[in-house]
């Protein structure tokens, strides 16, 4: 056992220990979700030349709690058309998997609910369950917008799970383990984003899609299907969907920062103690969250078929090629700097391809004002 606190079971009882850890994580999670909603509103407001919430508490800091209380006391409406049990259980099935992800996440060295030897595998498996709740909400609401949203979500999440998992497996191959704590521990001198940049690009794209974030927010498209699968929910059940959305945002950010940005290990490692490790985890996950907010405030939404063709025609091929290249390097034991170099070339080619695709369009930037001088027919 290590010298860090919380590594040993509380009171020496493993079942009591598990309950205490879960309660701590759920409380922290709820608090984080409340402040993520506040943070998103503030950040996006700044992108849009607004102030965001300012009235509730100092600089609006209590806004999230005000919203939560409002949602708790609102009426929980169930449409007459809805399939009763499917409708009522869908929110739980959406947010329980997200909370289960937290069991495996490493917040600092040996800090977490459990250190699972197959941590990464556990995260994949549990996150896949999310779809069930979403599909149940879509089918059970008795609403056609919800049906469209649920089916869109299912198609999208199943498709994007493949590049997500394959890209992370490529990293796991380099690391040689699926234990998240061990993966983070290996990165004390260099984070894996330096060795596997292409995997990070694929992971980040697929993550946006899994989280239903812009530009992949097709299942919840507000201007088309008005919220998608949770359109019929209100009050506490709606807030569970919201909780699941932001909780998975945070869980994914910590997961991604643990695998690619070095989690608690980079750059100070074990030397500076668990306080610094927690701060590092927090800062790195906030960087990821900030990136997601930034993308959301800027990009419009793709169409369903464009989204699918991007996944099946670009991301999956690239991720399997990455897996192949990594395997080749590991089998012949070629040195790591060359592996990193090849990956960087791959990432630059991939992003460059996307850029060139955008550039091959007729130049739109200078079109305004340079339209041909129109010949006007004489009246």
């Amino acid at each position, binding site marked *: 056992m290590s010298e860090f606190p919380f590594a040993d079971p509380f009171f020496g009882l493993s079942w009591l220990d598990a309950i205490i850890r879960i309660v701590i994580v759920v409380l922290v999670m709820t608090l984080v979700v409340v402040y993520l909603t506040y943070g998103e509103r503030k950040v996006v407001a700044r992108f849009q030349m607004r102030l965001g919430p300012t009235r509730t508490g100092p600089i609006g800091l209590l806004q999230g709690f005000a919203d939560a209380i409002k949602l708790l006391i609102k009426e929980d409406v169930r449409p007459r*058309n809805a399939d009763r049990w499917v409708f009522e259980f869908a929110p739980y099935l959406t947010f329980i998997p997200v909370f289960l992800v937290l069991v495996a996440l490493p917040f600092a060295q040996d800090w977490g609910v459990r250190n699972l030897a197959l941590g990464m595998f556990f995260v994949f498996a549990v996150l896949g369950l999310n779809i069930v709740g979403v599909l149940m909400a879509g089918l059970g609401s008795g609403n056609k*917008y919800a049906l469209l949203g649920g089916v869109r979500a299912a198609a999208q999440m199943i498709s994007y799970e493949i590049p997500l998992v394959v890209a992370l497996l490529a990293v796991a191959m380099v690391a040689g383990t699926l234990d998240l704590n061990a993966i983070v521990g290996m990165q004390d001198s260099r984070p894996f984003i330096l060795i596997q940049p292409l995997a990070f690009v694929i992971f980040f794209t697929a993550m946006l899609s899994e989280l239903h974030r812009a530009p992949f927010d097709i299942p919840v498209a507000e201007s088309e299907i008005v919220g998608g699968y949770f359109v019929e929910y209100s009050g506490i059940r709606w807030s569970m969907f919201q909780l699941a959305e932001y909780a998975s945002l945070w869980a994914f950010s910590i997961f991604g920062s643990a695998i690619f940005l070095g989690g608690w290990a980079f750059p100070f490692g074990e030397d500076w103690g668990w306080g610094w490790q927690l701060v590092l985890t927090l800062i790195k996950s906030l960087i990821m969250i900030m990136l997601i907010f930034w993308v959301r405030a800027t990009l419009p939404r793709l*169409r369903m*078929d464009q989204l699918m063709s991007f996944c099946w025609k670009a991301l999956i091929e690239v991720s399997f090629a990455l897996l192949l290249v990594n395997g080749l390097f590991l089998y012949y034991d070629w040195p790591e700097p060359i592996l990193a170099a090849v990956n960087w070339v791959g990432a630059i080619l991939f992003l460059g391809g996307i850029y060139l695709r955008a550039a091959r369009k007729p130049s739109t930037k200078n079109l305004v004002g340079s339209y041909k001088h*129109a010949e006007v027919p004489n*009246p």
Partner: protein
Amino acid sequence: MSIWPEERVAAADSDLDTVDMTVNVGPQHPATHGVFRMVLTVDGELVVGCEPYIGYLHRGLEKLSENADYRQAMGWWDRTDYLAGMCCEGAYTMAVERLAGIEVPERADYIRVIMMELSRINSHFMFLGAFGADVGSFGTSFVYAWRERERIYDLFEEVAGDRMFPTYFRIGGVTMDLPDNFEPRCRWVLGSIKQGLEDMDGLLTGNEVFVERCRGLTPVTPEQAIAWGFTGPMLRATGVPWDIRKAEPYSVYPKIDFEIPVGVQGDVFDRFHVRLAECYQSVRIIEQCLEQMPEGRVLAPKLPKTLRINDGELYMPTEGTKGEYGVYLMAKGGTNPYRAKLRSPSFCNLSALQELVVGSYVADAIIILGSLDIVLGEVDK
């Protein structure tokens, strides 16, 4: 209890056949920009049928105008294209003036053109912002548009005392002269508008996702556009340089130098882009008006206390923000028009919705509707 009774029964008859589903969009829906309703028949994500319903905002404008004094009817015309109230009241007052043979002082004409072009920018900004939101930008384009719109409305408030429905024009001129500091204020607003247009251009036009969504979506040929009765930016996007301000000039437009932006293939992207380019031309027009504007009266002298027009009829086409905004008036003596008729461009543009939407995806149907840039006050009159 079955969720969709009729569809389940239909599906039970055939094995493994899919059933078309009807999706009701509107009258309360964020993408319909008002109280417009369309019932889409969808096969999965594909739209196979579309039935538009209008009339939720019908207020009987034409009948009201026929039952009121020529001057009393002014206020209702503001409320047709409520995003560009000045353009509508401009069309109505010019129609009455032509019918009654009233000369307008030159300064009043220039003031009217400034106000109408500001209204046009205002309306186009509303389109740019709302269209960005339709395509899926998370309100950012909307807020960018709103900044400039607020400044234009502030200017209107300073000039006319009201923001959306100013009723600033009078038969024979305008209510009152411009405030003293109008020119510097207006130039500042114009600079801000140019900045806003550049922001909008950078946010949307250069955006790969946006271009990917809009390029090549429902291209319209000039022949089709003319057959459907398209006017305004919808027609110009197909490449036909038809603009009433040049084709059948009114007011002081002949004295002003400006170009007509036209599109190439009439797709959704061109419709967006023509409107963006038109805003630059409107800025040019206003700048020239500010330079050329003479001093003098703003309301014609010796106007009759009660306006009576003897027999006559007239159709006054103007370039509204959405297309040809035409006012038809028929007088048979007395203080009221015998018949008043509005040729509303939004209504004519909207008539092509079914042809454009059928065969596209649900997500595209929304942005095609957005690209038509309808204003329901004008469609329903």
